[in-house]
């Protein structure tokens, strides 16, 4: 074979082998590491898988935060005003985590339908709502905002 052509062949095969290995690796890694977002209503309806990591987001229900006395375990409920799901988290919660605020939690569901969170994300500033949460809440009105009827 002509040396220049041989060279080009080596070059092309190198490129093909390296990029297909990388893309294969990427596809494999992607399969295991993408987390689908579920609003509370879908989780409550049993539509979320229990054997893999998911993301769940909504508003933290007022009065639902329970802290353990001697450890850093916290249990709270999030809602999209259609259904609520309990989340348990062990560790320090973000600064802007509070009742009535939008949050996203990442973790796995246990058999009781409680999300055992490995991470809880809150917004970064006061005027900001995580887009997933905003979309999940769209069209649902908070019950507390409904006019009070005696």
């Amino acid at each position, binding site marked *: 074979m002509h040396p220049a052509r041989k060279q080009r062949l080596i070059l092309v095969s190198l*490129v093909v082998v390296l990029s297909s290995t990388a893309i294969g690796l990427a596809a494999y890694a*992607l399969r295991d590491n*993408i*987390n689908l977002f579920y609003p509370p209503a879908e989780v409550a309806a049993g539509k979320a898988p229990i054997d893999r990591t998911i993301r769940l987001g909504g508003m933290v229900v007022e009065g639902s935060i329970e802290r353990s006395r001697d*450890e*850093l375990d916290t249990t709270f409920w999030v809602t999209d005003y259609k259904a609520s799901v309990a989340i348990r988290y062990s560790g320090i919660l973000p600064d*802007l985590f509070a009742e009535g605020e939008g949050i996203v939690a990442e973790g796995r569901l246990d058999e009781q339908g409680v999300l055992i969170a490995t991470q809880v994300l809150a*917004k970064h500033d006061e005027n900001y709502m995580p887009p997933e949460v905003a979309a999940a809440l769209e069209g649902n009105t908070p019950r507390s905002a409904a006019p009070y009827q005696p």
Partner: protein
Amino acid sequence: MIPEIGHLALIIAFVFAMGLAVIPMWGAVRGNSAALNLAPTLAMGLLVFVAIAFAMLAVSFLKDDFSVAVVAANSNSLLPAIFKFSALWGNHEGSLLLWVLILSGWMAAVSWFSHGLPSVMVARVLSVMGMIAVGFLAFSLLTSNPFERLLPNIPLDGNDLNPLLQDPGLIIHPPLLYMGYVGLSVPFAFAIAALLGGRLDASWARWSRPWTNVAWGFLSLGIMLGSWWAYYELGWGGWWFWDPVENASFMPWLMGTALVHSLAVTEKRGVFRAWTVLLAIFAFSLSLLGTFLVRSGVLTSVHAFASDPERGLFILIFLALVIGGSLLLYAVRAPTVASRINYTAVSRESLLMVNNLVFTVSTIIVLLGTLFPLVMDAFSLGKYSVGPPYFNAVFVPLMALVMPFMAIGPLSRWREDSAARWLHELLVPGAVVVVFALAVPLLFGGRFNVWIALAVLLSGWVAIGVLKDLWRRLGVGSGYGLRWQTLTPSFLGMATAHLGFAAVVMGAVVVTQLNEERDLLMEVGDVEFLGGYRFELTALSRQAGPNYMADQAVFEITQGDKPIATLIPEKRRYFASGQMMTEAAIDGSVWRDLYIALGEPVEEGAWAVRLQFKPMVRWLWLGGALIGFGALLTVADRRYRRQSTVKSAAIAEATGLAG
């Protein structure tokens, strides 16, 4: 009045940008030298008026003019003056103005430092950059006017700057990062100008190379500072999150890394020409993509100031025009005759090609992970997020793959080399590194950690390659004395950057492997041990700051009987927004950081506390700084200045001034 002057200046700047985009380009086509020579003047005018607009906005911030919407939304009368100034770019409109200011700064620099270049080249380069300025100024004026007033209902006080951004790191991180981001427009403009001129050759690469190195150096420093800021300000001690916004700045960096190396081959050997042009186009396109991702509000992040679909659409169209237009030009004008391959498989060219392949593939991997959720969402296929495990699984092996070649690269010869010679050069150093890799991990806590061994092996290999090169250049042992003159700024810069890279890898692996972290409840008098240190909570108190109230905890840290440090982490509540902020306390050293952050008060007198022991975490930023400074150092090389007198004749011919 002041905001109106600023607005007017911005409009005049837009007119200058329009002129710059059209007149010199027309001059280049028609061979009209009067039109050509107008380019530097127009670029200066653009800089002056953008600077006036910027100064007017700065004055509005410093004078607490809350009738300006941006000031009212992002500043507060209690804010310290320095943060009032940096609040200018702590928001969408202001940061865009900073973007344009830096762009026009780069343009002025190009026109100042290009006396040796043929005027047609300068005109084309400035004109291409003028087109970019038109896009961004139009974006600013049409969708994100920083001078918009809130009349007649002027707020009494401002909303305050997000407390996360009230930090010295944020005063310099955005300008540095933008210097890099926007600086990549210079090699892009050179590439487009060369395509328009129709001749791509070594002299083009020589002009473009120092600019690329500087931009890439600033980008490295900007990313490094961002990581450092996240580490101490976000309060949980992480240093890289694979957050889409981090990726947005990291992708141009990865592509820029490939470009910096590819330019070396094109300058020295005249090959990889079309590829280098393509890399220059991609690197800047990724900068624009990053701007789109960050500014359009499609991402959830501390950087996403506003979500306004109109803005997103504008940048998306601009992005499509720039990328589409430049790729079309590339398709039409790129060298049709493939350059003859005049190097062998075992040569420096091939090693640099490995670098290019790895960094291009890495860019694609990061791009895939970053865009995947957006694409799925756009087609309503679900709301996904791609986590750090994905990026780590693919990115880490790729970096490990490139490191063995990094040591050989600087020692190798152009065109033709032999594996036997490489073996001869590196056998002894290689053996030393293997011994180190087996021994050093034992120093860390006694247990052999295979990942640390690998990191020592690869980083040590890279470092020893640099040292061997230094040794050889100096001619140690040759009997003729040391040849200091061989240590050119080019070489020193490269060596520094490579050592920096090795340091980053060491720091990243060691801190990931040996990090110790504990979240716990502590009361005054409680003691905890971590990483061989004793942490005692000795007091709790409350202290007022200029615009916040802080809860403080005092920790005494000792090791054996030796006092190490007193750390005072804070939990602040900012008055204006009522926002809570964690201010971590860190005792840092080269070998380890001790990191304490306060969580929340859980019951009477008890706080949730996060203690962390982070070995060698500083190597990350030290290494990042070395990479950045190394890149900046290369510009001092004399050959970039000599070109002006010696080669101008050849250059004039090369750019096709006649045609």
